[in-house]
């Protein structure tokens, strides 16, 4: 594949995947600016290794995995230098930077960001990126059954959070 063709191929992949990758990472890290930075860097790495990444069975999953890994490295690096808020605490924040910008449903975003980190990641990969259970497990380094369990718990939490009337209807 020539450089020009590679560039076109990558540009099409980027156009198709950038928003869903951004949203997936946003759900994981809880901060719009951080998510944007991580996703931009991950796509840049994808372009730098496009010959390899283009052959990956799910290039968008590669980008998300790279972004999440970079976030872990970033967190570890900064932890040695300055204190940073715990990601869970960030998710509990009522005003998560960028999450309520634009026409997103603030109630749904807030409920998603209240989920534990792992559940948010599973929701993002399964429902936003549409990865199957096995692929989502590969990205997160957990078993398919753990993916299913996290997703079930996440849906239950969202249901309770967003549909309290149904919770009240349940027999005690």
């Amino acid at each position, binding site marked *: 594949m020539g450089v020009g063709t590679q*560039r076109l191929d*990558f*540009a099409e992949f*980027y*156009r198709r995947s*950038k*928003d*869903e*990758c*951004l*949203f*997936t990472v*946003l759900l994981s890290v809880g901060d719009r600016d951080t998510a*944007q*930075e*991580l*996703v*931009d*860097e991950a*796509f*840049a*790495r*994808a*372009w*730098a290794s496009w010959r390899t990444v283009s052959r990956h069975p799910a290039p968008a999953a590669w980008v998300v995995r790279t972004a999440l890994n*970079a976030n872990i490295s*970033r967190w570890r*690096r*900064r932890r040695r*230098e*300055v204190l940073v808020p715990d990601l869970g605490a960030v998710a509990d924040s009522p005003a998560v930077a960028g999450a309520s910008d*634009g*026409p*997103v*449903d603030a109630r*749904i*975003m807030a409920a*998603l960001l209240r989920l534990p980190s792992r559940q948010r990641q599973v*929701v993002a990969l399964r*429902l*936003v990126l549409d990865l199957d259970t096995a692929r989502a497990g590969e990205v997160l380094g957990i078993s398919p059954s753990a993916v299913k369990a996290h997703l079930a718990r996440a*849906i239950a939490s*969202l*249901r309770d959070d*967003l*549909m309290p009337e149904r919770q009240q209807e349940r027999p005690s």
Partner: protein
Amino acid sequence: MNDEELITAVREQRSKIHSATSVEQIIGRGRAVRARRRIPGAAAALGVVAGTAVALTALVSGSHPASHQPSARLAAWTVVKHADGDIYVTIRQFRDPAGLQARLRADGVPASVTFTGQRNAACRPYPGTGLIGKVISVRQEGSRPLTIIRPSALPSGAGLQFASSAPRHGTVPGVGVDLVQASPQCTGG
């Protein structure tokens, strides 16, 4: 709202978040990613020119002290400062890191250079990600990578760390460039 509608509502949110970064910006940044990686071209050149480069280093460096302007040409590495302020660095051989470091500092770039496979332990990463792509770009010039430094893009209090990777069996050593916090111990006073 049942579970299916709930899942649909979650999925709908993804179409409401948009990345504003253009593909051109990503591709430009991808070049900086390559700059941070090992540069096999330098190692390939290393094997080819090692015999003559050592002699040239001794011969030429004597007539081109680090403070000489506008350029210092050494066989091991070359630093050229251009009129627009950009500095072009070509590393052919992992020799005389102190000379390269002094040359970059003389050209106004707070820098730490090590060719030992170890980074300068006094250097601390500069906070924030993605900034390196604004300061460093790399392009291939012949068989060797050319590193272009844009000093005007260096954030306040930042410097550059050039560090070779440790030579290991089965791998070729390269040079990584990172943004670090400028300090007397790391990048000089």
